[in-house]
């Protein structure tokens, strides 16, 4: 970044422009609402200065209609903006189906990103321009917050919880990426670069970052290496549910509840298996919370997700 002063932050998306428009229009409204106060106070202070001649007859000390109108009119005007901004916010919460999903793991004090094709990077996030990107984020330790000012969005990143952020960055360029939630000693150095590339450049970059192993495949290897397959595999002597077709299905739990097997459920089943026990099984699965990190979990989750279409085999 240049050391010169920038009065307006750069924009990497069309959405950023909409946020700017919203704050500029709302700024105009609040200026309009407060201008009478500033102007009248100054005017009265001069006009009715003590000792100065002025018409002071018919002073009032109450007027219900005036009170009601100056409470309600600004309120209603502001409500218009409430509707506008809330709609923008809710849209910004629902990623499209076809979004490219990247996983983000935050830890004191770095950002780790994994692309589905297997590319991994630290403190740098490459994304293709013009394509919806969804970030599935979690933290290895305390709360962080992923903030890209040029996109005008941020989202807190919590330990043991997947939070999401999605966007379409349409202007290629290099932008700042920062941690916005105080997370300890080097919080202000938990920064990185957000790099938007033309799709062909992104493809080239992916190829160059040289991985022949996708996220899911890596998860599949871990599944064997960590001994998961020893219980969950087809020929296993232990009674454990098959994980094929699990993702997205409805799982009956011990105790009668049912849950939908989403990413969070898969995460918790691995890290804290005793939290929700699948109905009909003994809670013999060891907790992996202290053995593996969030990156490995995200690979395992990716692998289980990749088995989603396999059709759920009933035990």
């Amino acid at each position: 970044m240049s050391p010169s002063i920038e009065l307006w932050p750069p924009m990497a998306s069309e959405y950023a422009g909409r946020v700017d428009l919203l704050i500029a229009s709302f700024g105009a409204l609040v200026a309009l609402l407060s201008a009478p106060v500033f102007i009248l106070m100054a005017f009265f202070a001069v006009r009715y200065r003590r000792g100065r001649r002025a018409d002071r007859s018919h002073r009032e000390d109450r007027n219900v209609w005036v009170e009601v109108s100056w409470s309600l009119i600004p309120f209603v005007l502001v409500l218009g903006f409430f509707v506008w901004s809330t709609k923008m916010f809710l849209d910004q919460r629902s990623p499209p189906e076809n979004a490219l999903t990247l996983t983000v793991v935050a830890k004191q004090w770095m950002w780790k990103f994994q692309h589905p094709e297997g590319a991994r990077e630290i403190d740098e996030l490459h994304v293709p321009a013009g394509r919806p990107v969804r970030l599935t984020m979690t933290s290895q330790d305390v709360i962080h917050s992923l903030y890209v000012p040029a996109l005008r969005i941020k989202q807190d990143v919590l330990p043991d919880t997947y939070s999401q952020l999605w966007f379409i960055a349409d202007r290629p360029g290099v932008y700042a990426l920062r941690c916005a939630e105080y997370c300890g000693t080097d919080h202000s150095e938990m920064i990185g670069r957000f790099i938007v590339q033309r799709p062909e450049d992104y493809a080239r970059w992916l190829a160059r970052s040289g991985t022949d192993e996708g996220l899911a495949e890596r998860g599949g290897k871990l599944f064997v290496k960590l001994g998961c397959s020893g219980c969950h595999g087809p020929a296993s002597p232990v009674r454990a549910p098959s994980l094929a077709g699990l993702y997205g299905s409805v799982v009956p739990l011990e105790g009668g509840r049912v849950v939908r097997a989403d990413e969070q459920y898969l995460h918790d089943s691995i890290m804290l298996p005793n939290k929700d026990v699948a109905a009909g099984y003994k809670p013999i699965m060891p907790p992996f919370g202290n053995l593996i990190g969030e990156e490995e979990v995200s690979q395992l989750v990716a692998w289980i997700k990749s088995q989603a279409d396999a059709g759920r085999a009933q035990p």
Partner: protein
Amino acid sequence: MSRRTSQDAIPDTREERASYLNAGQGLGSWLLTHDHKRIALLYLISITFFFAVAGCAAALIRADLLTPEADLLSNEGYNRAFSLHGIIMVWFFLIPSIPNVFGNFLIPLMIGARDVAFPRLNLASWYIFMAGGLLTLAIVVMGGVDTGWTFYTPYSSTYSNAYVIGALAAVFISGFSSILTGLNFIVTVHKCRAPGMTWGRLPLFVWSHYATSVIFVLATPVLSITLLLVALERIFGVGIFDPALGGDPLLFQHLFWFYSHPAVYIMVLPAMGVVTELITAAAHKRVFGYWFIAGSSIAIAVIGFLVWGHHMFVAGQSPYASAVFSFLSIVVAVPSAIKVYNWTATLHKGEILLDGPFLFALAFIGLFVVGGLTGLMLAMLAIDVHVHDTYFVVAHFHYIMVGGTVSAFFGALHYWWPKITGRLHSDLWSRVSAILIFGGFNMTFFPQFLLGYEGMPRRYHVYDPSFQVLNVMSSVGASILGLGYLLPLTYLLWSLRYGKPAGPNPWGATGLEWSVASPPPKHNFETIPLVATGPYRYPLEADAPDEGEGEKEAERV
């Protein structure tokens, strides 16, 4: 005319001896006093001290931010500096500032009582407060705490290796002081009003303190319990907030803001009460919309409990909950707007004296309006997602809490100083310092709105070089602001010795506190007054002032 009244009423020696300042000499008579006025002074001295300590931390922060690199302080040192600044400013200056000093001093005088309902409890509150404050200082000496004043989990409960427990204990202890003060004020207003002092005749200062006290009593215990839970998790590893132990970190944020949002109103409602008094006294005119101002204090206290989720729009709470909190945050702005518009209307056709206290009141209004309106911007979800946890928020709450509350605190100090000490201070210098504070404040904090919108997160020690220009402006402004705060210290202390005697009512204001000698006698009223009229009995019809104006005003007094 004020000067003339004052000369008429130079207290004779007998009266002088009877004043609360002279009733009893020696340190013991102060440290064991039950007199609400003396306790108010104990608070005044102690919070001024804490303000200075936290101000030094702010100076360190601003000096460090002059450059984008970490040079003056290490990262650890910087984190400790802003944590200390926040914790002391919030709990040991802002929250007790106006209520414990001016509320304590004035509520009994304003309602025609000899003291608060529980004078001993009042003294106990001060001791509890001091225990908390001194513990905080001890923590600082031992090496400080690095969690920020917000103590977010699991950082505070598991990861930080600073003296978190000590800081939690200090805030926990000071909470009892708040609760007891709130309780004391509520009972005092209910039970100790002079005959004829109906609810509709209470000065609006008292109404706003009543509303504040309700928040003290209802919100503070939630904070205390929350801090206790953090301590339990930290010491015994009980899983409450840390997900690794099976807890929920968002639970902490809900509980913390359930207290801390209302706490914002603890800081600003008393200031609003002060400003109402200052505006009517300067305008020499009845306040416009008494019941709307009184009712808006209560409305703020009630609705203020329903908006805490606006601190968590990007924390991971349900988006629909966020929408509801956004809506309620717009609703809570309405009563504040009512107050501002009513103050403006009060000035209409007034006889406005442009004195120091009035300028402080104007500074409050100007800065509070900016703070409030940017708060409204933050309540807008799509805007907040961008500027949450940036300097935009830092600027916003400093406009409310420093621009607003501290200006009102100084306004109150200048307005009631003659009552408290019996001496007049320099009007010229008080105007100078009001202007200095207003200018310095804007220069310090306005650039921070821009910094925030450009994307500088708060609590950043090392920052992008493109932010430097605005940061330097802010630091320069802060030195002017610092001067503005130091100035009153000099001429106010000077007035103690050289100031002219004030007489009972130097401003020609209404209100029972102005009907007794300055400084007031130990038991306030020789005979309890009988109240027959409402507050602010300035004439409804005022003629265009002519040469005889002076006489007329003197009659009114």
